[in-house]
């Protein structure tokens, strides 16, 4: 059966098509201001590019912040469940998931193929992609360049502000003091990584940890997390699609979740 998963995130929408156990295509784009329109357009485009008719899609499941707005979905599931399903599909051995998206961050504990516990931060921009977006702007680089810059640093600057607004002015004053962009970038990434690491440790994550969400595309961030957690981290080929993938898997019915080796 072909199923679709739609992850209607606050910042980006992701749609994915799954045929039994095979991903046939996906799309990622900004949500703009309307969850439903964004999802519908991307879904249609994806169907067209994969040459699949709407009637061939058995079930559509939605997830993400705007999931209840996706009126053409058959059902919606929470993003915690969706990410867990998506990640376990790609890496069945994973026991913990760190998801840092544009507007929130979450840590999920997985046991026996199911969510056992989770922690979310969605009240504050600190520890989310928003923090990097705002501070990168203060540094006059794009968020995509931040990771590369950070990797070139030997002395990460000390960013003490947890608050995104204060961190922005801190970046400006660090620049005024002549600290290099590389060191500031590394400082910013260390700051957000530490925030996420506290959440991960609070949840007792030790090893077999996957890192997903938009911020997982940042090589500097992966390196810093690996250093802080002392383990190698699993990062999917496309870290932003695990939510949509999980929704598409759920739409297939429970049987597609791969067996878990413990």
């Amino acid at each position, binding site marked *: 059966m072909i199923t679709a998963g739609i992850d209607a995130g606050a910042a980006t929408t992701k749609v994915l098509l799954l045929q039994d156990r095979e991903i046939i295509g996906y799309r990622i784009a900004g949500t703009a201001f309307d969850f439903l329109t964004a999802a519908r357009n991307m879904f249609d485009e994806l169907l067209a590019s994969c040459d699949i008719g709407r009637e061939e899609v058995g079930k559509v499941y939605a997830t993400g912040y705007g999931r209840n707005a996706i009126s053409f979905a058959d059902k919606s599931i*929470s993003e915690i*469940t969706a990410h867990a399903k998506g990640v376990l599909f790609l890496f069945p051995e994973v026991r913990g998931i760190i998801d840092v998206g544009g507007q929130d961050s979450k840590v999920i504990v997985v046991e026996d193929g*199911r*969510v056992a*516990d989770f922690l979310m931060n*969605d009240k504050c921009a600190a520890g989310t992609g928003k923090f990097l977006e705002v501070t990168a702007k203060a540094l006059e680089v794009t968020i995509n360049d931040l990771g590369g810059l950070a990797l070139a640093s030997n002395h990460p600057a000390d960013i003490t502000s947890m608050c995104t607004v204060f961190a922005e002015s801190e970046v400006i004053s660090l620049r005024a003091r002549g600290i290099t962009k590389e060191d500031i970038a590394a400082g910013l990434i260390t700051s957000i990584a530490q925030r996420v690491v506290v959440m991960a440790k609070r949840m007792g994550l030790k090893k077999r940890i996957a890192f997903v969400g938009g911020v997982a595309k940042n090589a500097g961030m992966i390196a810093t997390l690996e250093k802080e957690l002392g383990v190698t981290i699993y990062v999917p080929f496309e870290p932003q699609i695990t939510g949509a993938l999980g929704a598409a898997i759920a739409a297939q019915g429970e049987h597609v979740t791969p067996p878990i080796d413990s």
Partner: protein
Amino acid sequence: MLSTLQSLDIFKDSYELRIAELKEEREKGIKVVGTFCLYVPDEIIFAAGADRIVLCGGRTDTIPVAEQSLPRNICPLIKSSFGAVVDACCGGNLACSHVPLVDVVVAEATCDGKKKMYEILHDYIPTYVLDLPQKPGSHEALNYFLSELRKFGKFMEDLTGNVVSNNALRREIRSANETKRLLHRLFELRRRDPPPIRGSEVLRVMQKQFFLSPDQFRQGISQLCDEMEHTTPDARTGPRIMISGCPMAAGNTKVPDIIEQKGGVIVVEESCTGTRSFWDLVDEDKDPWKALAERYLEIPCACMTPNDQRVARIVDLAKQYNVQGVVYYTLQFCHAYNIERLRVQRALKKEKIPLLAIESDYGDSDMEQIGIRVDAFLEMIA
């Protein structure tokens, strides 16, 4: 969906009646005491021939008034309650109908925020503070609390001009125990699967426990129980949930409403608007003062240390009510309950009972975020 129980109307319609009753009492010279907390024994107030009304606030609109005087980062219950009193005393327009009915406030030395707020409250309305030992497990603590209760008895005698006799106390202890037994009956019925009443409905009833007169309240509960015994509830919409944590004062039903809207079935609340108010009875055979002191010091409030009895009670309730998960509810900036969460979580984990922690205030801005967590939690434990 559960059909709504008819007897709940008794509670809905009781508000005006009760306000009228209190007004009438005051005209006759009967003193009315305002209270905030479970540690202030109703029995002593009634034995002195006075009446009482709870002032604990769950309203949002009185918070800005409070924030003109108090720091922003204290718990919303404190701000809301303080704001209601100050607004009423300063002729504000928020129209809290309770405050103008009160001669004095009887407060208690519990958490830091309330303790210090009462000092300021005293500038607006006479406020008597009952002291509490913070480590209640010893004889010394019990004796100290006993002396505090006697002092409070004396205060009530001076206020009312009546004597608080042992006989009157015994009568009030029996009366309060009767209320507690009725609440046990109500909560016993909730152990059924599916339960015959929604948690949010029980909460709205419990919020009236210290507002209504004991007679009114008991009448309502007993009719409600009779009706519940004969209803056949529909199948459950989701997992059985227990709520544990901070009190939910009248006006605050946000989190239970969200849980139920998402399909969770709340079957018990470990809180001051739940089991803490009635679980333990007062010994009717002992010296009444001593019996009161013992019972009130047993209240498992997070202001006390150590608070092992609360942790044990939560685990016990979770098992008795056969819950699939616990929602640990705290008010923002309530350090006592927020910090105690970890011990509760660890104890529940040993029993393999999942916990979702929700810290919130009285505003609506986090409803979506709470909903996301609740959805995920319900999926997780389903």
